[in-house]
């Protein structure tokens, strides 16, 4: 196990990168602590897979260094970095049995067969493949194949980190949560560094202790799921996390108050005059908005009952505001007003938290 540091990392796939767009990773400085469960979260094309492949050594970065336990590994090839990587599509050796698949990395290290046997049985139990050890790998379901990939990743004793590249993509949606829980449980049991790349915020937040949110090759925020949820530092983070995401509304400043139209909104962060002139927005999550007797007047556009909650879409001066309320609450029919929880309402200038 190792502490992984990324310093000054920049990467471009083009031979002669000229402008910003040519850089898949613009400037990354990150530290992954030993044994942590991390998620790399971001939309398609944000650079998360590039970052993962740089950590595992499948890709050489254009600039910057990758350090394991403070020693640089840029020049060290993938198999010597002691990394396990599980890909989007299950990779199994079709001609081998499940047992042989799991044994493969160990046999490449030329371990004694008795050792191999012990280790394989141990891991097979962990990922619940014991009953299938003698079956041929090619005939199994996608979920089982991913388990084989996972098992192959765990079977080596010296593993610095386990990297997951959107591993649940091909899994039946009905079974996704099962495998997700299993991964989390495995992390608790094994305490190995696990880095999980995904575009699904639910996956990221349930799996990781710390989430790195990326967009356009940059890291926007690193924090625990709670931090990212309660206090997003960037409007993109606020919008991307949560379903539905944070409401972002353009606002203005007058003397010392934040104004939405002509209504004053109280925010958790301090407001100062420096912020005038910048693109100002208010961010508040649907979970922290309620109906009230007075406050922001809105009109109700749509109500969706999603089982245990209701998602209500309202409109204020042409802007959409969504709120989430309990299933049992009855909606006001006229004179609808909203109040925002001021401790969870933030002011953003040029998309960043002030």
């Amino acid at each position, binding site marked *: 196990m190792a502490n992984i540091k990324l310093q000054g990392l920049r990467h471009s796939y083009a031979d002669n990168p000229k402008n910003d767009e040519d850089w898949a990773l613009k400037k990354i400085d990150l530290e992954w602590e030993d044994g942590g469960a991390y998620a790399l979260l971001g939309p*398609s094309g944000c650079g998360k897979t590039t970052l993962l492949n740089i950590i595992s050594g499948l890709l050489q970065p254009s600039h910057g260094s990758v350090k394991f336990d403070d020693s640089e590994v840029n020049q060290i090839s993938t198999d010597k970095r002691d990394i396990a990587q599980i890909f989007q599509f299950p990779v199994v050796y079709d001609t081998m049995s499940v047992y042989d698949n799991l044994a493969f990395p160990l046999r490449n290290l030329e371990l004694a067969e008795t050792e191999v046997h012990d280790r394989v049985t141990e891991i097979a139990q962990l990922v619940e493949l014991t009953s299938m050890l003698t079956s041929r790998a090619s005939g199994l379901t996608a979920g089982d194949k991913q388990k084989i990939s996972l098992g192959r990743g765990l079977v080596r004793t010296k593993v610095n980190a386990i990297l997951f590249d959107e591993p649940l993509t091909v899994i039946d949606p009905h079974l996704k949560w099962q495998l997700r829980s299993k991964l989390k*449980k495995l992390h608790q*049991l094994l305490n190995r560094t696990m880095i999980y790349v995904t*575009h699904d915020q639910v996956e990221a937040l349930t799996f990781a202790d710390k989430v790195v949110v990326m967009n356009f090759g940059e890291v926007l925020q690193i924090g625990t799921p709670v931090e*990212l*949820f309660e206090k997003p530092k960037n409007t993109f983070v606020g919008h991307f996390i949560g379903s539905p995401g944070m409401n972002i509304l353009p606002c203005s400043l007058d003397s010392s108050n934040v104004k939405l139209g002509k209504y004053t909104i109280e925010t958790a962060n301090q407001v100062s005059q420096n912020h005038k002139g910048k693109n100002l927005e208010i961010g508040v*999550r649907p979970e922290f908005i309620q109906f009230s007797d007075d406050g922001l007047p809105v009109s109700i556009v749509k109500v*969706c009952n*999603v*089982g245990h909650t209701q998602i209500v879409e309202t409109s204020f001066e042409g802007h959409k505001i969504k709120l989430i309320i309990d299933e049992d609450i009855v909606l006001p029919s006229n004179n609808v007003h909203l109040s925002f929880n001021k401790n969870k309402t933030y002011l953003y200038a040029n998309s960043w938290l002030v």
Partner: protein
Amino acid sequence: MKLELKEVVKTVRGKTHIYPTSLTFKSGDFNILLGTTGSGKTTLMQIMAGLESIDSGSIYFDGKDVTKVPVQKRNISMVYQSFINYPNFSVFDNIASPLYVAKFSEVEIRKRVGDIAELLKLSPLLDHNPSELSGGQQQRTAMARALVKDSSLVLLDEPLANLDYKLREELRDELPPLLAKRDSIVVYSTTEPQEALLFGGNTATLHEGKVVQFGPTNEVYQYPNNIISAQVFSEPIMNQVKVIKKGNQLFMHSGTKWQLKGKAAILEDGGYTYGIRPHHFKIGANNDGFIRISGRVDISEISGSDSVIHFENEDGFWIVHLPGIHSHSFGNSIELYMDTTKGILFDINGNAIFNNEQADMVINNG
């Protein structure tokens, strides 16, 4: 407009893919096919489109028998999971292709394509090639092509499944108003109960080639007619626990018991299955209907504002969904309150028993 499937059966090489199915879809609302992969959604859609033949049964459109009508003559549009576009056409030509085939005038084509592109935010991309677009844009192009002509039947087969999470949310918001303006029948298939609930309309729950229940979405959700329908429409799964009824009380294996009210009290004594969805649990008891459940935590998953906790006790494995952040480590003991008024009783055959009139009405009509 009305599409009727009457006792439609499909077998492939001896294996039944679709059991005798009768469904009626009307225009004006989303008609949703909800089920896991392999439950028959795609097959059913292809049958409706005319891309698959049926072994027996018939298909009626507005009262006319269209069973033998080939797909080219059925005036349908289809959107697939994998964004299918003509790779060598520009976005404009892609969207216009059904209009070229139907020989619309140039002026008409430009107008229609322009309108739909505007609606789907594709206007600046009209002369690009699909390979240059992102996944979301490619899927919008496919949708535009499906919507540009006035088809009587629009079939969407898990169209959002291959898109990023956030993109899925966005398109989910945009789809209903887009489809509401037309007089066509819309059939949408998905594996996610959330999506069905968000779209509303009517939902048919499918399982292994059979339609288990069909009706207004919210009703199918609240009042499943049997345990299979309930499970198809639950994510995460519905908790199922074996109970014994004695008199007007229900007992779990561990001895935990609670009072039964209303119609349920007059049922026969004996064994039943009690189903309750994960979000009907609270940290504290709100009223008399709540009973205490405790157990040992297996894992607790936090997702921003909520927690999903898996725990087990004598009565089995439980999954609960609680608002707020509650982190527990493996092995911690946990104590919660279950809202017994929200549970559903299933008899030994898996059929649901409800104790209020609205539910009975739904079951009898569905």
